[in-house]
C-alpha cells in the first residue's frame, strides 16, 4: 500500500515540478511529504518559488501565484491519471492577462485527454475553448442557455450577443 503510494506520489511530483516550471517560465516547485518513511502519518506540503524570487511561506504568495500553484497541482495529477471530466468555475479570477492565457492554453493542451468544462468571464479563456456556451437570466428569474456563442461577439467579461 505504501509502495503504491510512493509510485503515485513520485510520478505526480515529477509532473508537478515540470508543470509549475512551464506555467511560470522558470519558477520551481515540488511536493514534500511531512513524514517520508511513513507518509500516512503526515501530510503533504507544497514548496513553490516563482521565478526570480526566494522560497517563501506559501501564505506569502500573491493571489495569482497561489492560483497558479494550485492549478499546477491539478494538472500534475491529471497527467498521471486523468479524471473523466474537469469542472472549473472561474479559476482565472485572480490571474492577470499573461497567466490567464497560460492557464487557458494548458487546459486546451490537456483537453485532448480529458474533458474540461470551464466557467469564465474572461475573453482570454473563452478564446481558447473549442465550444462556448452562454447563460442568460430571462425576465422573471429563469436561466436560459445558448449553445454556440460567436466568440467575436464576446465583450469583456460576461457579455455576448444573444441571437434571436
Amino acid at each position, binding site marked *: 500500500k505504501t509502495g503504491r*503510494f510512493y509510485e503515485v506520489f513520485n510520478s505526480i511530483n515529477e509532473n508537478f515540478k515540470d508543470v509549475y516550471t512551464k506555467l511560470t517560465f522558470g519558477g520551481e516547485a515540488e511536493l514534500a511529504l511531512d513524514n517520508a518513511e511513513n507518509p500516512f502519518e503526515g*501530510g503533504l506540503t507544497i514548496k513553490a518559488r516563482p521565478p526570480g524570487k526566494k522560497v517563501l511561506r506559501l501564505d506569502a504568495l500573491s493571489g495569482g501565484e497561489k492560483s497558479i500553484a494550485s492549478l499546477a497541482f491539478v494538472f500534475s495529477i491529471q497527467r498521471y491519471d486523468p479524471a473523466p471530466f474537469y469542472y472549473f*468555475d*472561474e479559476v482565472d479570477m485572480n490571474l492577470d492577462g499573461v497567466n490567464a492565457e497560460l492557464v487557458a492554453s494548458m487546459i486546451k493542451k490537456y483537453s485532448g485527454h480529458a*474533458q474540461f468544462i470551464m466557467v469564465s*468571464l474572461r475573453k482570454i479563456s473563452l478564446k481558447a475553448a473549442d465550444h462556448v456556451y452562454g447563460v*442568460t437570466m430571462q425576465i422573471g*428569474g429563469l436561466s436560459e442557455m445558448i449553445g454556440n*456563442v460567436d466568440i467575436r461577439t464576446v465583450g469583456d467579461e*460576461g457579455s455576448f450577443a444573444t441571437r434571436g
Partner: protein
Amino acid sequence: LYLKEVRMENFKSFGHKLTVPFLPGFTAITGPNGSGKSNIGDAVLFVLGPRSPKAIRAGRLTDLIFNGGKSKKAATYCKVSLVFDNTDRVMPVDADEVSLMRFVKKAPRPDNPDNYYSYFYINGRAASLFEFVNLLNHARISADGYNIVKQGDVSQIIGMGSVERRRIVDTIS
C-alpha cells in the same frame, strides 16, 4: 468516460426542462453575473452527492427547487440527470450510455412541513444510495474530487491542511 449531457428540470434558476450537451475537449461557459453559470456546476455536484447542501449554496435540499422567480409559482420537485458516455465501460454498467439521476420532491407533513423525498436512478431504474455511491466510486468520480473547483476555491489546494492534501494522493493510489 466523459460527461455527455446535463439535464436539469426545475433546478435552482433553471425553472424548466433543459438539456445541456457537452462534447469532449474544452468547453467554456460564460454570461453575466447571476445568470446561472455556477448553478450548472451545482447541478453536477447535486447528483454526485455533496457532503451537505451548503456545499451547493443551499440550506436544505428543497432550496434547490426552482422558487418560481418573480412571478411564477414555485415548483414542487427538481431533478438532474448526468449522462455519461460509457463505451469504455469505466462504469460497471453494461451500456454505452449511463444516466445518473437524482430527484428531490417536497412532501410536507403536519409534523414536518419541510419534509422531502430524495430518489436516485441509474438508467431510469430506481437505485439505492449505496448502489449509486458504489458506481461513482468505481468510476472514481466524487463531489469532493480535486477535479471540480468551485467558484472562489481555486487556491484551496494551497490553503488546505497538509494531511487533507496528502489524502488527495491517497485516493488516487
